[in-house]
């Protein structure tokens, strides 16, 4: 099965602590291949890092193995996390276990596919603009993008630092929440993590798994019109039916408006590409990674190394990011994108004065067929319309299976207020119990 869907780049084992007990003891976990594993190559789905072996493990990997989970392999991904289909990997596309002619979503497609195919109990992905939630939706499993600062990024190979978080993928809401319980918490190696005892309104002793109790009685669910407009009708019908079931369980739904999200995809791509152009400058073939045979000077050698090591989508984003930051264009693109980001954040803050969670389709479309969107990058970017707002606003979000349309999985996304992971887990568990 593993070979059929190409979920893993590398199958290798890191044994979990045999003496540990708790929900993850004896669980198997698949780790996205941009999360460092000591002694096991970590490729980011790129030719550039095909032979890179990290000298240390990411904090999240140590926390999982200390909790008793055994790592079973490194999962395939869009190159450096840049894609919505897992087709931009240098190691070939991953197939969707539900329908192998379709993509699993991306960029954490290997992680979601591994869980959906039963290759691992739990998986880790990273979510910069939807990369955990999109593949969870397309493969019919659960994915959580935590609040920015809840989970350590130490050992995560950076794509766009201000947006990304590592998050769990699992077959059920409770399993995903249990994995989040293990990986969450401040880390001296990542200065952007927060100590929840110092965050107003957050509960440092919260158990996310315990919040999966299905009790939505009295909960207010905001339904933003902007995130339904333009979505595939079959997706909208499936998601609306799931929301109606939440109402039947005692939740109250209310239509809301988030006008800023119309600009979320543009703002996301400008910011992510700008950060990527800076982050990926480190890949010059000197300290690690592929190195071209060039006998030219410093600049020629770097340019050749990077031509050979990076795929087309990574080059596109580095170049567009460089362009957006260059003299004469910085104000036009980057500054406006930061304005849009602040606007999105304020829109959500205002909405959460009246509602507890915000529900929408995770993806506005059903899973693409393999090859369908690869030649049209803009079309692929537009599929991120509903997931990117949570990254721009630093908010927690979960994708939970809402049902099927034409035999394909449809994901419902629930976004919560900052550090409101318990609320989105609770609401998602009610969706799952339908």
């Amino acid at each position: 099965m593993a070979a059929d869907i190409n979920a893993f780049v590398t199958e290798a084992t890191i044994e979990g602590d045999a003496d540990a007990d708790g929900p993850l003891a004896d669980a198997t976990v698949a780790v996205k291949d941009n999360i460092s594993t000591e002694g096991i190559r970590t490729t980011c789905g790129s030719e550039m890092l095909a032979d890179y072996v990290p000298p240390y493990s990411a904090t999240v990997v140590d926390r999982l193995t200390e909790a008793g989970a055994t790592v079973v392999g490194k999962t395939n991904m869009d190159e450096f996390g840049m894609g919505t289909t897992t087709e931009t990997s240098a190691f070939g596309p991953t197939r969707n276990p539900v329908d192998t002619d379709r993509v699993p979503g991306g960029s954490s497609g290997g992680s979601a596919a591994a869980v959906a195919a039963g290759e691992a109990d739990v998986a880790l992905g990273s979510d910069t603009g939807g990369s955990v939630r999109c593949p969870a939706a397309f493969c019919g499993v659960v994915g959580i993008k935590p609040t920015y600062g809840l989970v350590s990024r130490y050992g995560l190979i950076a794509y766009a630092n201000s947006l990304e978080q590592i998050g769990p993928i699992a077959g059920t809401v409770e399993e995903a929440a249990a994995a989040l319980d293990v990986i969450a918490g401040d880390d001296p190696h990542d200065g952007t993590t927060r100590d929840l005892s110092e965050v107003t309104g957050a509960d440092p002793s919260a158990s996310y798994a315990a919040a999966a109790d299905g009790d939505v009685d009295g909960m207010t669910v905001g339904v933003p019109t902007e995130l339904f407009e333009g979505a595939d009708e079959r997706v909208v019908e499936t998601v609306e039916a799931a929301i109606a079931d939440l109402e039947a369980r005692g939740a109250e739904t209310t239509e809301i408006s988030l006008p800023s999200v119309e600009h979320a995809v543009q703002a996301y791509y400008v910011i992510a590409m700008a950060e990527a152009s800076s982050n990926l400058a480190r890949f010059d073939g000197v300290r690690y990674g592929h190195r071209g045979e060039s006998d030219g000077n410093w600049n020629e050698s770097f340019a050749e190394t990077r031509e050979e090591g990076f795929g087309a989508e990574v080059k596109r984003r580095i170049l567009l990011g460089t362009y957006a930051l260059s003299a004469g264009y910085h104000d036009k693109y980057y500054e406006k994108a930061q304005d849009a980001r602040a606007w999105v954040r304020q829109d959500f803050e205002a909405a959460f004065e009246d509602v507890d969670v915000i529900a929408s389709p995770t993806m506005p479309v059903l899973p693409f067929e393999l090859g369908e969107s690869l030649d049209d990058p803009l079309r692929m970017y537009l599929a991120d319309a509903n997931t990117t707002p949570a990254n721009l606003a630093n908010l927690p979000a979960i994708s939970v299976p809402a049902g099927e349309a034409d035999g394909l999985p449809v994901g419902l996304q629930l976004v919560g207020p900052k550090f409101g992971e318990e609320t989105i887990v609770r609401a998602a568990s009610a969706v799952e119990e339908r």
Partner: protein
Amino acid sequence: MSDTAASDDGAAAVDAEEVRHVADLARVRLADDEVDEFAAQFGDILEYFEALDEVPETEREEELVNVMRPDEIEEGLSQEEALANAEETEDGFFVGPKVS
């Protein structure tokens, strides 16, 4: 603010020369057919980004604090570990390409 990327109809047009310039800044060599493909795609993508012009100027108040730690010596990678992934090393150093 310079607005040279916008052609008369307001759409962002990017020509091959601009793609080459940016690729040069980013130290990424491109094949000729890649330059043409990127020029066409960048035109579409930048035209889509134009919609950011409609975004109102927004107050950006973020509660950001510096995170400090005591400046104490901690165990780090050994020299051998730090060099282990390098393509070329010499006497415990990285070897880079020639400067000129």
